[in-house]
């Protein structure tokens, strides 16, 4: 194990025990002792005022220069690109330019009869498209897609491969990573290659002491940031010794590039070596649910209800509210778990990440997992009975009150905004 306590330096102050999120440090003979619960997250190293805790892991340098370019798994279903694929092409474009002028962002299209998606990938920023088609690849299968992507990676050696953290991306990426014996970071919400972008992000948004980072560090390794521990903690993960560096990225957090229909790029067609015996699962049917698709990620205004609604029909009021303001209905997990509304409406760590112009949180306490999915909204308005509810810590506007009394008044005043404002300035 690589995190150790230097016995001569430890004064037994126990600050590391408080800092450890994994309960992995105990006192032994009045000194700190690191147990096997340790995950080497490094919190204790930063917490120790005496520099008594160190990471002994040696960095084994390996020649990684054979690997070049950023690949985006451009996930398509039934001949339609997933939104997250376009977001990732946009993000890949940004990262590629940060790595070097001649680093390319490449979309990897796997399927059958999907030539028409090539231009769409260029239009959203792809420099190259790898097109892998076969009848056996028409629908996603773990075996089929793992094989053709692993083979392509071995041939073309990309430096980075990113996938959308969808039910398909999260099925595929771990298989590919295990077959290539390389690292994979799940469900990332931020990616950096340039240390200065990372420092800027960390300084503005996190508690990280950025003086521990060297702004002159020229390494272009991928720094993959993701929530851990139910959103209580953020971790930045690196993959220093193996290539490609791989991540799945949460849908809805990266920025698409502006659509440019004139853009063009280079097409590389790959004939996959795939046979029927390679695929050990048989898809009997793909069923689309008939429920209304809620597009929380694109919504400009979201009206969310939580357990504070008290009963399922509370969502009637939320729906009325959303209709009035031209918004979409969201929910906390507690409301979903109570069976009041579908999981598709859930916002947060295990739901959708949203970034609307206005987020109305009604009867939502503001648990960390909920905040994880909405705190980057431009404006947050919280309505809650409890003046101490944590949601008020992140709200731009807080209202202490009964949502059943307050919301109808907001609905009533909405159309008179102009007059009310004029009156108030007189």
């Amino acid at each position, binding site marked *: *194990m690589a995190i150790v306590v230097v016995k001569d330096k430890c004064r037994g102050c126990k600050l590391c025990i*408080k800092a450890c*999120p*994994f*309960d992995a440090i105990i006192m032994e003979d009045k000194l700190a002792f690191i147990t*096997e*619960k*340790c*995950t*080497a*997250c*490094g919190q204790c190293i930063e917490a120790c005022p005496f520099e008594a805790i160190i990471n002994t*892991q040696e960095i084994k340098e390996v020649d990684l220069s054979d690997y070049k370019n950023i690949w985006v798994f451009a996930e398509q279903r039934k001949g339609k690109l997933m939104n997250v694929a376009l977001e990732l092409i946009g993000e890949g474009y940004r990262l590629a330019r940060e790595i070097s002028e001649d680093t390319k962002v490449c979309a990897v299209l796997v399927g059958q009869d999907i030539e028409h998606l090539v231009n769409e990938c260029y239009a959203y920023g792809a420099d190259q498209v790898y097109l892998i088609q076969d009848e056996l690849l028409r629908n996603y299968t*773990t075996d089929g897609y793992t094989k053709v992507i692993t083979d392509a990676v071995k041939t073309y050696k990309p430096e980075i491969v990113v996938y959308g953290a969808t*039910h*398909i991306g*999260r099925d595929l990426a*771990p298989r590919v990573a*295990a077959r290539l014996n390389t*690292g994979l970071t*799940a*469900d990332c919400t931020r990616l950096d290659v340039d240390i200065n972008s990372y420092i800027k992000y960390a300084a503005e*948004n996190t*508690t990280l002491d950025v003086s521990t*980072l060297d702004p002159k560090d020229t390494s272009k390794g991928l*720094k993959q940031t993701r929530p*851990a*521990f*139910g959103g209580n*903690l*953020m971790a*930045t993960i*690196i*993959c220093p*010794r*193996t290539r490609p560096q791989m991540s799945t990225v949460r849908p809805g957090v990266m920025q698409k590039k502006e659509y440019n229909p004139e853009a063009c790029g280079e097409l590389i067609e790959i004939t996959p070596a795939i046979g029927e015996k390679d695929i*050990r*699962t*048989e*898809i*009997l049917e*793909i069923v*689309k*649910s008939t429920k209304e698709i809620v597009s929380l990620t694109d919504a400009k205004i979201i009206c969310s209800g939580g357990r504070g609604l008290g009963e399922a029909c509370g969502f009637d009021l939320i729906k009325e509210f959303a209709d009035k303001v031209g918004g979409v209905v969201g929910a906390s997990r507690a409301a979903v778990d109570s069976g009041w509304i579908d999981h598709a409406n859930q916002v947060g760590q295990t739901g959708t990440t949203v970034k609307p*112009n*206005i987020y109305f949180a009604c009867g939502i306490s503001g648990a960390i*997992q909920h905040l994880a999915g909405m*705190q980057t909204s431009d*404006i*947050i308005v919280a309505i809650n009975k409890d003046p101490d509810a944590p949601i008020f810590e992140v*709200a731009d*506007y807080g209202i202490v*009150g009964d949502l059943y009394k307050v919301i*109808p*008044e*907001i609905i*009533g*005043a909405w159309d008179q*905004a102009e007059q*009310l404002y004029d009156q108030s300035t007189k």
Partner: protein
Amino acid sequence: MGLRIIVCAKQVPDTNEIKINPKTGTLIREGVPSILNHDDANALEEALRIKDRYPDTHITVVTMGPPQAKDMLIECLAKGADEAVLASDRALGGSDTWATSNAIAAAIQKLGEYDIIFAGRQAIDGDTAQVGPQIAEKLGLPQVTYVQDFQLEEDLKTITVKRALEDGYEVIRLKTPCMLTTIKELNKPRYMHIAGIYQACAADIPTWNAADLNVDPDKEVGLDASPTNVFRSFTPLPKGKGQMIEGDCEKDIGQQLIIRLKSKHII
């Protein structure tokens, strides 16, 4: 007639119970209980349902973790699993998902033949959903993740499952041996029964170290072998507190809000 089933389970802190100290930005961990990971409880439950139908079925629960993880294994035995093993060694500490899957795959191989491996989709402390598929890869098995419905044919070799998608599901057929990762929609886990608890506490749960598993701490397991490392970890900065809107009555408050949104050109 029965099946040989392996269930991969993990003991996790109940992250629901964890709160952040808003002043210091650190986690408040005191009194946070350790529990059987939720998705893994569904994995075990599905195995137990097969055993209810085919009593000759043999269920082994495998975990990797600190010695305290035995408590979780006892819970699994008390629910009706036949056998449990713990992979535990300081040399396994700091393993990322790639290294963890090496250790668990080695433990499964040591156990011998099996028909189905069930694992929870993901653990609530890490939320990676990577270990199940990576074990399957190391063992060369077909997999289905996000299983929300499970049917076993009479031949005990053919399985039909529903795999949840964001906007529906797929119906997939495959043959044993295979790896299935489960989600909470699959079933409702049962409680322990009293007789089971007595028996389980007396059960002998072997602990296997890296040498027993025949894995190499320099190349296969533990922090040094893991391809990914934690570069930094930190807590997100809480967004600054905004203004509270007060008024004589709800009507006044509603109007005050609208006026502020309007004055800031938000609406």
